[in-house]
């Protein structure tokens, strides 16, 4: 009955509805054109004229510390005050910034990974920092620049965009090997492994003597990159990936071996179940960023004898490498006031004293070499032998690629890692296929 009514009404009004359709169509076309046309105006407006808004991701404790630091800064800075706003996790911030770029209305600064920054740069929304860094009054001196770890600065230089520095380090950390002493003791192992051969041997020993898994593994592109570095390889050369190199194949084959011998298992993505397993004495090792240190210490009931941090195993102990983690901060192309306030805050924040405070309060690393002689940091290191391990790793930490389209390659790497962890492909095959698909993906982004 319902459908019949519908049909009856449809036919007689056909003559009228064409006028309706035409008019509404015109109306919509005009509206769309207006909306689109408006979008093509130049410049980006700040979302708040009375303060320099900083979109950040920090939660709970570190958010409080960041706010404290920004309050101190605002007390001495005469320009726009900095306003920190927690805006979701990194993916959400990426989405928000993308949308805001489209809407031509941006905050003063935001956190961003290199792969995200390379997506923002072509829109003209990000300010290259070279002008600020080398500015005679506002900039950093050569001593300052030398004081910062080179890898940390290097990762913010975008070769594809004239080698300019589009971001500045914010919260850096490195890939480390976390180990559980109890499980190692149960397996009669005295110290964590220094080479990959030792790692495999120890893993087998752990399985044999305790029946437990040696490693709980998180599917993460940065981890794989770090492992490739530690095996003496590189990840990319220009715009061609090197996932079929011996180092890369070595990494995937190692995972394959461990899967076959039941030495490793995959954790639920998006969780920290590997840390949980470590804390519950269920695994011996995890491969995670050093920023997790304070969290794990808390979960271990502050018992320093139960666990530790070490450099990740290497192939060649004399030329070690690991991967550099952590977001940077970018300044948006809004007004000069906003940019200046943001830059001054960055300088204040990455200065040695504040940097050490930030590091001690959050577990991130200070980016300056001079931090080593800071008394608070020295005291922290004296407190527990493993507190120093991450800092020592910083010297040989390497940055990940920051070419356009890397976001997509990250998904492909994680895909490949999953293929090997679930036993669907051999390590060698996964690595070779990954190179093909990664190169194809990068080609699409040119």
């Amino acid at each position: 009955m319902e459908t019949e009514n519908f049909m009856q009404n449809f036919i007689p009004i056909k003559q009228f509805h064409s006028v309706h359709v035409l008019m509404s169509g015109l109306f919509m076309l005009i509206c769309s054109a207006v909306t689109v046309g408006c979008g093509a105006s130049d410049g980006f407006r700040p979302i708040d004229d009375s303060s320099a808004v900083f979109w950040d991701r920090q939660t709970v404790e570190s958010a409080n510390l960041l706010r404290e630091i920004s309050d101190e800064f605002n007390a001495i800075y005469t320009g726009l005050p900095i306003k920190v706003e927690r805006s979701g996790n990194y993916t959400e911030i990426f989405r928000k910034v993308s949308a805001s770029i489209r809407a031509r209305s941006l905050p003063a600064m935001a956190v961003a990974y290199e792969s995200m920054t390379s997506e923002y740069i072509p829109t003209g929304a990000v300010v290259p920092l070279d002008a600020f860094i080398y500015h005679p009054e506002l900039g950093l001196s050569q001593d300052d620049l030398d004081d910062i770890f080179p890898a940390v600065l290097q990762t913010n230089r975008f070769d594809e965009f004239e080698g300019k520095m589009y971001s500045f380090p914010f919260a850096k950390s490195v890939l480390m090997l976390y180990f559980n002493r109890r499980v190692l003791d149960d397996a009669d192992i005295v110290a964590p492994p220094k080479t990959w051969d030792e790692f495999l041997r120890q893993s087998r020993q752990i399985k044999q003597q305790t029946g437990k898994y040696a490693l709980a593994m998180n599917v993460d592109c940065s981890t794989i990159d770090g492992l490739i570095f530690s095996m003496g390889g590189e990840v990319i050369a220009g715009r061609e990936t090197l996932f079929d190199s011996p180092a890369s194949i070595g990494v995937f084959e190692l995972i394959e071996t461990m899967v076959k011998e039941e030495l490793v298992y995959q954790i639920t993505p998006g969780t920290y179940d590997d840390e949980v397993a470590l804390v519950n004495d269920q695994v011996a090792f995890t491969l995670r960023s050093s920023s997790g240190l304070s969290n794990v210490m808390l979960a271990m009931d502050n018992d320093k004898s139960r666990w530790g941090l070490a450099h990740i195993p290497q192939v060649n102990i004399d030329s070690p490498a690991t991967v550099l983690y952590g977001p940077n901060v970018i300044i948006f192309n809004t007004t000069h006031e906003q940019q200046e306030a943001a830059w001054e805050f960055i300088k204040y924040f990455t200065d040695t004293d504040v940097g050490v405070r930030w590091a001690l309060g959050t577990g991130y690393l200070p980016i300056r070499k001079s931090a080593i002689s800071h008394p608070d940091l020295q005291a922290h290191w004296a407190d527990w032998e493993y507190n120093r391990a991450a800092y020592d790793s910083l010297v040989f930490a390497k940055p990940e690629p920051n070419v356009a389209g890397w976001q997509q390659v990250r998904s492909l790497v994680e895909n490949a890692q999953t293929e090997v962890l679930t036993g669907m492909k051999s390590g060698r095959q996964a690595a070779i296929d990954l190179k093909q698909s990664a190169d194809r993906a990068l080609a699409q982004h040119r």
Partner: protein
Amino acid sequence: MRKLLVYILLSFGAVITMWPFLWMLTTSFKTLPEATHGGLTLLPSEWQWSNIRNTFEAAPFGRYFFNSFLVAGSVTCAVIITSLMAGYAFARLYFRGREILFILVLTTMMVPFEVILIPNFVLIGKLGWYNTYAALIVPWCANAFSIFLMRQAFLNVPQDYYDAAKVDGCGHLRYLVKIGAPLVKPMVVTIGLFAFLGSYNALLWPLIVTTDEAMRVVQVGIMAFYGDAGTRVNLLMCASTVVILPTVIIYFLAQRYLVESPLGAGIKG
């Protein structure tokens, strides 16, 4: 006897349905290591009542709840009004292009939200509504689903009611307000409930249009417990449990009205 079997099966089904909530509730009172330990234990070894205090001191939840209720309440009222009006128009009025318009309204249901997110965000920016209640409320004041439901409800009200009222000299508007709306009360409650839930549970949209602490809603507030290096599961569950409570209470009170049938009484009269 048959009834007893039904009750047993219902209870069994209820337990399966409820199990995740029991877990949420009991985990709220565990310590962090205990909460992440896993295994088959449900109850905490020691009830950590302090978790409640810790949860609500971590962020200004008072303000968040105020915002959530304000926004959800406004949206609910607006949706009820707009869908009553539009549903009635589509069901009982004759005008040019009625069918076309209704189909166009329905098509808005078929476009995934994530896709129109960015155009909507741009529009909000142009209207200057960024970080305001307007952005949180206005786009949701009408939706095709509610209009569809209300139209169905009005179609089920027999034509006789209107004809009888017309004889008494009653026009459409009077009829709608005095007779029509009360007749579809169950549907009004249903639509109100879904509108409230949709608004209260929304996360994506509030996250993207507000960044000011003072404008946050509870769902965004809960995100605070997803730390950079680990999730505080116990506090997260505590917050989540408390966040669900208002909707449970509202539903419990409203569900009676969802199933009353006033039509039976009307036909005889």
